[in-house]
């Protein structure tokens, strides 16, 4: 059975990958390259425009209401280059007038004037990689900016008229303590922005961190737990509530683009290593930037999601949300009872208080969120 698409409730999202950074961070295993020259960025942008336009036939003015420029460091592009990409997207997709258009940004790569130019292109959200308010931690991560740079970047974005600003912070990083993380949280709250993402560090293989894993002084499991707990509490005191495991926002500021992932809507990725989920198929572009710039379409992965896999993914993703899964919607979508499919496996976790299952809604409790992978890997039928 083919997955029924849910177009009535949600339009598609678009993800554009910009794989350049001034310098790669020590923990990063995303697809990014130290930027070589303005020419290499220019030829990448023109390859992006090519890819978008090559697919005009396929997408035939599909309705879209979020665009997300992720990286890397997208703000290494000039406003003109953003304009070129947005124009080509406009030629292929039906981008609604109230779309959320986000650009990821690293501190000290954009100033007020630059932000103002982005705004004039219709970009209305920026997400800034702040990571920490402590210089020793930033250095340990291999970040090339100071916290002062981050504060200035946030202020510049605001001055340029961005009200929808997000900051990424990390916990569980080298040299971090519960106190130092609290300082980061308090400092970030002072910036008075409506969206925060708080991610736990994961040591990915192939990164410098993985090579030096043993020499890294990392907070233990209990401190990490306390850090996350503090984040949930403190942000809530500032009216920034958790709406997804790692994402916190003031009312009305949840990232509409990220919700596409969790709420199981289609999204289309362009650029090297970009991931797409379109009409029941997941695929990702190759990480080979040379081939990409030469106009080659290479897929790293391609997976047709059958009904069973779709049910699992739906639960895996939906349970990340504070609102959890609405079992009525699940049944409408898959034509199968959520309770008969997952109820038995869930029941020990409901009993232990890690999962709350009431009024047709299934969601993690506060303690359940901490151990979500453990629980998901127990209940999913993979």
């Amino acid at each position, binding site marked *: 059975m083919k997955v029924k698409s849910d177009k009535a409730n949600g339009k598609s999202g678009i993800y554009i990958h910009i794989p350049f950074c001034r310098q790669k961070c020590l923990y990063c295993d*995303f697809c990014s390259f130290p930027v070589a020259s303005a020419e290499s960025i220019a030829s990448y942008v023109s390859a992006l425009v090519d890819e978008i336009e090559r697919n005009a036939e396929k997408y035939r003015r599909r309705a879209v209401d979020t665009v997300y420029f992720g990286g890397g460091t997208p703000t290494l592009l000039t406003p003109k280059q953003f304009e070129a990409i947005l124009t080509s997207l406009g030629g292929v997709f039906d981008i609604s007038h109230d779309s959320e258009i986000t650009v990821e940004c690293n501190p000290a790569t954009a100033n007020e004037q630059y932000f103002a130019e982005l705004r004039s292109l219709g970009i209305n959200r920026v997400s800034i990689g702040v990571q920490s308010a402590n210089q020793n931690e930033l250095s340990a991560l291999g970040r090339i900016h100071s916290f002062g740079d981050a504060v200035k970047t946030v202020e510049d974005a605001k001055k340029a008229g961005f009200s929808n600003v997000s900051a990424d912070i990390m916990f569980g990083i080298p040299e971090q303590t519960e106190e130092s993380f609290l300082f980061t949280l308090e400092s970030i709250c002072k910036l008075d922005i409506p969206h925060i993402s708080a*991610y736990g560090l994961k040591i990915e293989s192939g990164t410098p961190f993985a090579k030096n894993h043993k020499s890294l002084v990392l907070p233990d499991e209990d401190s990490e*737990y306390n850090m996350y707990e503090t984040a949930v509490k403190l942000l809530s005191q500032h009216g920034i509530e958790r709406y997804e495991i790692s994402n916190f926002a003031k009312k009305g500021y949840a990232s509409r683009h990220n919700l596409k*992932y969790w709420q199981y809507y289609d999204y289309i990725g362009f650029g090297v290593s970009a991931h797409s989920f379109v009409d029941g198929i*997941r695929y990702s572009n190759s990480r080979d930037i040379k081939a990409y710039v030469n106009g080659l379409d290479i897929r790293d992965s391609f*997976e047709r999601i059958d009904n069973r896999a779709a049910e699992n*993914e739906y639960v895996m*993703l939906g349970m990340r949300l504070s609102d959890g899964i609405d079992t009525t919607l699940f049944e409408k979508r898959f034509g199968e009872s959520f309770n008969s499919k997952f109820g038995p496996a869930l029941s020990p976790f409901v009993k232990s208080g890690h999962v709350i299952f009431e009024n047709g809604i299934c969601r993690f409790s506060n303690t359940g969120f901490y151990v979500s992978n*453990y629980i998901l890997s127990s209940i999913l039928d*993979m």
Partner: protein
Amino acid sequence: MQVSERMKHIRNFSIIAHIDHGKSTLADRILEATQTVSKRDMEEQLLDNMDLERERGITIKARAVKLNYRATNGEDYVFNLIDTPGHVDFNYEVSRSLNACDGALLVIDATQGIEAQTLANAYLAVDANLEVVPVINKIDLPSADVDRVRNEVEEIIGIPAQDCPAVSAKSGLNIESVLEKIITDVPSPVGDESAPLKALIFDSYYDSYLGVVVNIRVIDGEVKAGDKILLMSNGTTYEVVEVGTMEPFGLCKGECLRAGEVGYITASIKSVGDTRVGDTVTLAQNPTKEALPGFKAVKPMVYAGIYPADGARYGDLRDALDKLQLNDAALSFEPETSIALGFGFRCGFLGLLHMEVIEERLEREFNLDLITTAPSVIYEIKLKNGEVKMIDNPSNFPQPDTIEIASEPLVKANIITPTEFVGGLMDLCQDRRGEFVDMKYIDTTRVELHYRLPLNEIIYDFFNALKSRSRGYASLDYEIIGYFPSKLIKLDFLLNGEQVDALSFIVHEEKAYARARRITEKLKENIPRQLFEVPIQAAIGTKVIARETVKAMRKDVLAKCYGGDITRKKKLLEKQKEGKKKMRQLGSVQVSPEAFMAVLRLDDES
């Protein structure tokens, strides 16, 4: 008794040695030198044809091979080389194999001299009335001291060694002198060809085409196809299908086997359990008057529960054990169930080496992942009601208040060590509840220590401890001397308040606290954090004597799920799920088989 011309040209001998002194290499050279096997066809250590034996460099099963040799006097001889197992676990098999021989080559490493097993094996050979021919090996090594070893042999074992062959089996140096020595020093067999058949079973193995192939040494009379034979220990009779000899590359069918000869018989026998090593074969119609002395049914000394890591493979494990038992009468097993581990088998072994060998064969040849419980000896428990129980499984240990006397098996251990390690080894024996018997100086540099030790202390990694405390120089040999009263108690472990039966074991009172603490610590290290806090307790009856806690799992990874890369996230969860499938549910606690094994692996030296 008479010796015919035919018998004068037969030599039945075996090679005995301490481990690593070069027994198998010497056997290889003899095979080459008799040109029974050409160098080209030679696989290293042809006689040890089990993979495991070749890797460990030890012989596990006895086997024999017939060789032809033309001596320097121009006459042709038949050599039957009977290879014996080289480990204390198999002492009984060794003694039976030796009884099939008339002489033994005692191989001694010229750099090491006499070791515990050299002595033990030499005594076994002397007990079997064999002519012992010393062969000094490894003379090509720079540290070889041939004269010292000759003197040692004469002084310690008391057999002449001044003119014994000194060889390098590795390079082939002086191998001829060994062959000539076999002819001059090993007596030819004696026996009455016209008397009723009397033959000794020294090995048997199962062949899927022939059934059980029984290796025998004919003492008196003869046997041929069609004869009705009687196995004297159990009174069973069979009709002989085939007789023949063991040639280097396989069985060679023959007409008959006569007094003094070594060969095989097949008789549609279905299980090696029916053809016990040491038993006497005779003719059903015209039996010999007396069976050969020394037969005993081998009894397992060490027991452990073996469970499939994946419960669904219980049937495979049973089939595998069935197959191994076809060839290994010393292996016993019966089904048992553990609340923690599910369905498995309680298996009996001759000793720890035997157990390891069986485990490895199950894992390698049958591709099984196993969970093995801590090995246990058999305890003799006399109850207050007069009943006597033999306990091979801690789960069956009676309630303490019903026990009159609990006894455990003791061994007489013989340790040979350089003098500098005596102190450390005496501490070790003391620590293992050993009772000092005596100490003898072999020469100015080496000492022979005698202790009485509980067998259950020896099975807990005693050998490794011995080696590590003597930098590998000390050697050990032991024999069981019987059951003696002891203060034994059963130690139980509880996870989250529930007893885990597979972790229980029987231990001496004095050792209980230390071991309880160690195992609770190990459990703490090896049990992954669960969703709830897990108390770990060690208890004697209802009395808790050690306690640890595994803290509850606090958080798992909350990493960035980047740019819609759902596939990676899914793979992470799938991997986690795979890991969980292998988990054993111990009550409400999940433990991986690896963790379980880590807890059971008792390395007292750590």
